[in-house]
Each structure stands twice: as structure tokens, then as C-alpha cells.
């Protein structure tokens, strides 16, 4: 956890779920109780550990239930054949980019630090991720290489999308979220509907 805290410590967006349509209730509710096994289709357990480590550093959050949902999100998009909207010509398809990227990350770290990425301590992990994000940590080992910036961006942006889709995180940032069928009535500056997160609850 970071030192900074949210503005809405008592707000829980899930308290309002009975006011949401059933489809939204189902989708959002399912994010809360994700278990790791046996339903992962794409990742091996080894890969899951590496992905946990990467996401926890990129998002600055160690909470397993949230990270488990994120892993499931990756597993879903990587095993489905729905396409990735766009891909640069020199970048491998996303299942390969992520799988080989994580493998190379562990190999390169092992050569450099004597530990695989997932086994490094938090400070060294942060240093490695910083290098990846700045494009100065090449994922290359012998003849094998993966474009490191594309790799870390793919992980970062997808992890971010999943993280900010988790209702626990919605509650922390004060996002009142789904509002069908009731809608928002008080939309102007300074106004809140009674069921939204309020600072005066602090």
C-alpha cells in the first residue's frame, strides 16, 4: 500500500449493486471472487507468478484478489481468438509477445541478478520495470529477443484496464459506477446523488 489514501474510506460501490441491471451485476460481481485454479486456460502457474509480480509493481498494489482478477483478464484475452484491434508490424502476436516476453524477462534477470524476475526483491523489481518502461532493459538472450517496450506497454495498459475495472478500486477512487436503470440525477458541480461516494463521509 502507498502512503496516500483515498478520499472516500467508507464508500463501497457494491452496496448499490441491487440497483444495477442484472447483466452488469453479473459481470462486476464475478470480478470479486476469482480463484486461480483450475480455470486458467492460457497461463502456466510459473507464468502466473511472473505476471503477478509485474502487475503488482506496475500498479503498486499487492492485493491477491485484485491481482488474481487481472491474471484472469489476461488469460481470457490471450486464449480467445478475438483479435487485438491493432498491432505494429514488427511486434509478435500478443500471446507470443507476453509468453516469450515473460520468459526472457526471467532469463535476463537470472543472468544479471542470479534470480528470475519473480524471485527478485521489490526494489530490484521496480528497477527492472523502470528500465523496461524507459526502453533501456532489452529482452534479449542469444538469438531470442522481444521488443521490450511493446511487451511492457501491453502488460501495463491491459493490467491498468483490468485494475480500474475492479469494484474494490472503484470504491477507493470514489467512482459510483453503474447507473442503469436509475441514472444520475444530480450531475452539476458540487451535487451528488445520495448513493455516491461523499467526502463528508471521511
Amino acid at each position, binding site marked *: 500500500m*502507498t502512503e*496516500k489514501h*483515498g*478520499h472516500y474510506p467508507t464508500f463501497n460501490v457494491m452496496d448499490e449493486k441491487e440497483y*444495477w*441491471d442484472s*447483466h*452488469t451485476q453479473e*459481470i*462486476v460481481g464475478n470480478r470479486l471472487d476469482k480463484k486461480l485454479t483450475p480455470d486458467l486456460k492460457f497461463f502456466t502457474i510459473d507464468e502466473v507468478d511472473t505476471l503477478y509480480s509485474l502487475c503488482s509493481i*506496475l*500498479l*503498486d*498494489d499487492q492485493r491477491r484478489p485484485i491481482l488474481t482478477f487481472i491474471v484472469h*483478464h489476461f488469460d481470457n484475452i490471450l486464449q*480467445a*481468438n*478475438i*483479435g*487485438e*484491434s*491493432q*498491432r*505494429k*508490424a514488427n511486434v509478435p*502476436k500478443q500471446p507470443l509477445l507476453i509468453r516469450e516476453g515473460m520468459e526472457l524477462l526471467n532469463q535476463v534477470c537470472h543472468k544479471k541478478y542470479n534470480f528470475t524476475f519473480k524471485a527478485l526483491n521489490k526494489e530490484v523489481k*521496480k528497477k527492472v520495470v*523502470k528500465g523496461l*518502461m524507459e526502453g533501456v532493459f532489452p529482452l534479449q538472450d542469444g538469438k531470442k529477443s522481444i521488443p521490450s517496450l511493446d511487451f511492457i506497454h501491453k502488460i*501495463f*495498459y491491459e493490467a*491498468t*484496464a483490468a*485494475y*480500474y*475495472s475492479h469494484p474494490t*478500486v472503484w470504491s*477507493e*477512487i*470514489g*467512482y*459510483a*459506477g*453503474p*447507473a*442503469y*436503470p*436509475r*441514472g*444520475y*440525477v444530480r*450531475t*452539476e*458541480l*458540487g*451535487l*451528488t446523488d445520495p448513493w*455516491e*461516494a461523499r*467526502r463528508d463521509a471521511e
Partner: protein
Amino acid sequence: MPNKNESPRHHINHFNDYRYTHLNNRKYKDDADVCIVGAGAAGGILAYELSKAGLKVVVIEAGPFWDPESDFASDELSMGHLGWQETRIVGGGHPIQLGHNNCGRGVGGGTTHFTGVLLRYFESDFQTKTIDGVGEDWPIRYKDLRPYYDKIEKDIAVSGPKDFPWGAYHGPYPYPSRDPISSNSQMFRIGCEKLGIRTVVPPLGINSAPFDGRPPCTNRGFCNYGCMPNAKFSTLVHHIPKAIEHGAEIISDSMVTQVLTNNQGLATGVIFNYDGNDYEQKAPITILANFVVETPRLLLNSANPMFPNGLANSSGWVGKAIMVHSSNDVYGKFEDEIRLYKGTPILATTQEFYETDKDRGFARGYTLHAHGSRPVETAKAIAKSGGGIWGSALRNTMLDYNYYGRITLVGEVLPNPYNSVTLSAEKDEYGLPIPHVTFSYGDNDQRLIKHAVSKMKEIIEAAGGTPEFVTTDTAHLMGGCRMGDDPETSVTDSYGRTHDIANLFICSASLFVTSGGGNPTNTVMAIAARTADHIIENYRDIAKS
């Protein structure tokens, strides 16, 4: 592609009172008058107008026939499938983000996830070469589209101001402006007012009062992820159901893979694929309304010995001069809560900077919108804005999510033939080459962006905020099969009729000659209504051709 249709409950063949999960009872298998590829903004209008005129219309749509109540959800992550997610290869100096950003999939196309902004283009948009010495002139003028803008706005009860200050049309709009507006839009108007910049609540295809059995907007804020109450217009909830009432047949979940031509060089219909099997749809007139990437791709993939460079491509202009709008966002932090998630995303707009002002050092101009944003969109935008915002920096920033406001640019991008859709070496599941989309901004585009970003920052500061993040986004796609009078430098005439194949039409933003500096959907729909009128008036001649 059954695995893409998340829900097996979807019907795929729809007409009159019939809905089928198979293709054994097709209504117009052999006697359609018109085959339309794509059920988006243009395809929906065409289906409605042509079927209303008594023509036998078949629409073939690659994605599902959505049911908003059960297929849509109040959730950003799960609604990404309203975008066209199939992979395209992107390149150039500024590779475009595709998918949900600008391409629709399923009945309704992009209208299921557009913001509902229905601006008109200005008179000068159609003559940028003559007036400003940049771009190209269109083969039509504003006055050619004016009756169709009027018609579309009336047909779907566009809400908007009584007095609109810019361009050729000054209101009133059929339905009153949306009221109240969101806090982010208030912020924008406060900042603009301090700087002497005029603003309006923009014309929107979003009900400000009940219309046609659909309720007024509830300010849920999910316009870009599928409207659940049906308060926002889409061709899914408006034109397509009416087209079905008028006799049209809609075939969904079916990908058109080839346009067929005969030995006279005329189009005879299309081949489409459903669930791994190929089917043929014959028609005396074929209209490609499958948008900026898929139309050139289909024309190029339909090459045959008579048309070795692709259909309708004797000019070589198929796939050339695609355009986006520059759509950089500026996020500013405020002392008080804004709550970007509440209300219709765009409820305040200025077009004060729309046309060329020589003092600014670039040609043409832009529109600015106050633009709401939910957590995923906000966090991803900030993550992509550079400057090392990840880990605790991102997390701490997002803890203040409710304190951010946002302004978005819709900036004109000049046409450049090197910005293109071509075929890549990679194949899709049908064995067809997938598209390669190349895009780079030009110097004029970049100078415009710089000016607009600086203006957006000024507005946020004038409203009492601190600009913190600038994101380099794009919006909308246009061009790639431009219309024109000269068959050597354009693909179609002003009605979208291809110069090379007399009974093959293109109808979508593909036809745009320049991008304009405002949201394009109203112009797409006006062009579609004009093309529909042309086909209805000349049906026999075109079909006989």
C-alpha cells in the same frame, strides 16, 4: 466465427416477424434489389430509406444483432467488443489505435458507441483547396447536403440549441438542448467564458425528451459503451428496426469476403461467410457501407482478372488518403470534485477555432469538447501520456480521479495519399490478407495540435484548474475511397457510385475528401440519405446498367 459471438442466443437472420438462428429461410436469397454490406451509420440509413421506398433490401453485418438490455452493461472493460477487435497491422509515424477507438462491429456499427455529437460540416469544409490552398475540394457543396442534414436531424429528433453560433446552420434544432449539463461541461463553459470563447450545448442524437418510444437520457454516462435505456440514437435502435418493418432482411454475424463481378465488369452480389460456410447474396446493386478500413480491404481482396488491382481501383486511389481527427485530451486537476463519470460525456462545445486563421500559422482548425471519462479510459490515457506515470504515481493520481476535468480536441487532419489501407502478408481465419493501416501526421496537423493543446490548457486554467496530463489520441476514421468528379483521382462520384463499376456503390466516411474539424457522423448520415435518394430516383437505370 462462432467464438466471437459471445452469446449463442443471437439470431442471425431477421425480417418481418421472423428471427432465425440459421440461414435456411432467407427472404431475398435470389431476388434482392439492393445488398448493403455493413449495418452502421450509413448502412442503417440506406436500409431504412431504400426499404421504405419499396426496394427489397438485404443488409449483411459482420457482428451480432445486439440487444441493449441483455448484451450491454455499465462497464468499460466488457463493452470493448462493440469495437472491431480483429487485428489490423498498423504503421507509419503515428500508428492509429483502432478497435473501440473508431470502428464499430455489430448492428448499429459505430453508432452504438459514439458520443452522439451531430455537428454539421461548414461550407468551407467542402472547398479547402479553393479557399485555403490545402487538401482537395469535394464534388459537393454544403448546400447539397443541407436538406439531408435537415432530414436526419428531424428524423431522430436531435437535441440542440435554438441559436447555434458557427457554420452555415444556426438552429433551431428539433428538440431542446440537454439540460442540466454535467459538472465537467460546466467547468469548460466557465473557463471559456472567462476567455471570451463562446460555447454551446452541442447538437446531440440523445433525447432531451421522450421521442419515438425512447426515453430521455438518464445521465448514466456510458454513451461510448452502449446506451442501455435507448435514449441515445443508434441505427441499431432507430433505422434498422424501421427498415425491418419496411421489409428489409438483416443477416448478422456474417462476414462479407468478396464482391462478385460478371464478364461485363458489373457487380453481381457478394460472398459472405457464416460459421465457416460461404453463402452468396445476389443483387443488381451492391453498396459497401463497411467503413474506412474494411471497404478498401474488401475491394482489394476482390481483385480478379478483369480488375487485377482490386475493384473500382483503376485510379489507384482505393485505400489512399485515410484521415483521422487529432484528438488529444488535456486532463486538469481541480480543488473541487468534477466527477468525470457523470452525465452525457459531451455537453459543452466550442467551434470558435474551426476555420483558417492565418495568424495561427496553420490551415483549417478544430472543435473542442468538454469530455467525460470513466476510470479505465482515464487511467489508460494517463498511463499512455508518458512521463513515467506508473506504479505509485499512477495509483496516487487515480485516487484523485474525481478531481480531474477533461477537454478533448477534434482537429482537422489534411489528406495525404501516403496514409493508407493496404493488404498485409498476414491472413485472417478466412485466408484473406488482413489490412495494413499506415498513418503519419503532417506538419500542418502537428501545428494545429500544438495550438489546440495550448488552448485547452488555457481553458482549464481559466476555470481554476491545473493542466496535468496531455494524451495523444486520435478519433474517427475518414477517407480511403474518396469521391470526386475525376475518375483518375477519385474512386466514386458524389453519390458514392464507383467510377469503374456502375452498380457498385460505397457509402460511409470512406468517401470523405477532407476530414473537417468536427465529429463526422451527421455528415456520414446526410451523405447516406442523399445516396439513398439518388438510388431510389434512378433505380432502374442503375440496376439495368
